[in-house]
């Protein structure tokens, strides 16, 4: 028992050691080689910059996270909805799936010009981009999950007299949950990145906008500070969904 408790903490220790080494190398390189801020600022400078601009950065992070979350929620709904529709009406599969795969084969960033032109540089274009990026991942993982169901379990449910909907609700949805949730977890980081990338191409606020502005103002400390914040926000979002995943999937 005590071993089981001790070993993860060793892992955490090593993780921290790795992070400390990285920061030390970075700091050492930046200071030791006298790298100017526009090449690579020192971590300490970035953290100081982060602190001094904390209000702006937190506002921007809020803006970006809002876009990412709304887009993410929308994307999940669309993905799950389509997958369930396909599960209930198998004929839809051959109509939706090739279409979805084709759209998905173009990298999301490819759509950004069109989406920016269609939806403007406000919040809505970011939400659409995030929703697009997320919904395909969700659709595919949800479908894979729904298809994973054991035929014999379906037969069992049918032998109890269950309807198609009963089978979906009591058997197929729970079966799909693990794959759905892992798809959702992977999508978190993606949603934040897509929001930021789209912001950098045109926006009215957000971390991507801050990064873009900071580059123009040649304020590289702020660029890095914004990147730090973006990374922290992604990690937090990722951690949250991961936590929910573990809570929900208690049986795995």
């Amino acid at each position: 028992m005590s071993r089981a408790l001790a070993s993860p903490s060793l892992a955490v220790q090593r993780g921290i050691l790795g992070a400390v080494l990285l920061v030390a190398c970075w700091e050492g390189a930046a200071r030791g080689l006298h790298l100017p801020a526009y090449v690579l600022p020192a971590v300490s400078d970035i953290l100081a910059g982060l602190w001094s601009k904390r209000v702006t950065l937190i506002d921007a992070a809020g803006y970006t996270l809002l876009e990412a979350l709304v887009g993410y929620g929308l994307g999940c709904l669309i993905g799950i909805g389509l997958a369930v529709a396909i599960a209930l009406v198998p004929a839809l599969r051959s109509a939706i799936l090739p279409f979805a795969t084709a759209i998905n084969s173009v990298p999301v960033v490819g759509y950004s010009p069109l989406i920016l032109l269609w939806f403007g540089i406000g919040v809505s274009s970011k939400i659409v981009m995030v929703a697009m990026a997320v919904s395909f991942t969700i659709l595919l993982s949800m479908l894979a999950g729904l298809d994973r169901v054991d035929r014999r379990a379906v037969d069992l449910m049918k032998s109890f007299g269950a309807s198609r909907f009963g089978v979906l609700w009591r058997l197929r949805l729970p079966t799909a949950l693990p794959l759905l949730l892992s798809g959702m977890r992977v999508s978190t980081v993606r949603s934040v990145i897509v929001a930021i990338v789209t912001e950098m191409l045109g926006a009215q606020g957000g971390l991507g906008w801050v990064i873009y502005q900071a580059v123009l103002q040649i304020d590289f400390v702020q660029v890095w500070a914004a990147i730090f914040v973006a990374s922290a926000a992604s990690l937090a979002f990722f951690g949250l969904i991961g936590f929910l995943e573990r809570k929900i999937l208690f049986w795995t």
Partner: protein
Amino acid sequence: PAAELQKASLRLKWLPQAQFAGFYVAAAKGYYKAEGIDLTINPGGPNLLTENLVATGADTFGLSGGTDSVFAARDKGLPIVCIGVSHQITPFIFVTRKDGPVKTIQDFKGKTVTTWFTGANHVLNGMLAKEGIKPDELKIQPQQVSVTPFVDGNVDVITATYYNEFYTIQSRMPKDSLKTFVAEDYGITFPRDTLIVAEATAKEKPELVKAFLRASLKGWKDAFSDPKGAVDTVMATAPTLDRAQQEFMLTEVKRLMTAGAAAKNGLFWIDTDAVKTAHDFFLKYGVISKPVDLAAAYDASFIQSIPAADRLP
């Protein structure tokens, strides 16, 4: 002989288009080679900063944002020097509908105005200040890549460059339905598209800089005398461009480059007065934190060393 060629690169502020025609023509006609330079032209892109790339030595020459960005770079301690100014007058204008509610700049109040926060916002602020209008009296929004919101009537005033957006707007709206506000009418000039080099280059390789300027001037003069050929040259690099638009662009760019002091002194002339005015303005509105040493930031000696006849268009 190729062995004696000196390697160098020019970083543009954006992707290839007629705005940069002279450089492409000079390269295509071998003017840089003739001056002993093996020049690579590198395009810009979103989130790429010419000042940064030149300061770090990644590129030898740069066509940077404008006087504003040169000041900002010097203010942040980037060791760059401006060796020439391309657009002698402000390339931005503010566009509204003739039949719309905005008749004078006073009418901007309470209206939706979109602009770029990459320099054009300073022009707008300057014009407003001259008229005694505070920026918070109107709705200033970042401008998107598309002019559609203006065309659709969702925006009252839009920012445009003479050579790009203004063309798009004109092509999508009835003729003579537009009214423009020009910075110079309000006594403000923001020269833009500045040529920069690193301080080290300016100090250690003055001959290279001069040679580069000589070749570029030749290229631009050729471009102006044969605009069709120049657009051909540009479109050889970027074939998907719209020819009509590129020809229009070159015409407008010629106007901007030969305006003001350049008419008398030639292309890439550094108009010290205009630069000084802009500097004082930026200092006043806090765009730069402290006064910049103008003599160090703008070195007119290179362009002045070239015979006037070679400079004049």
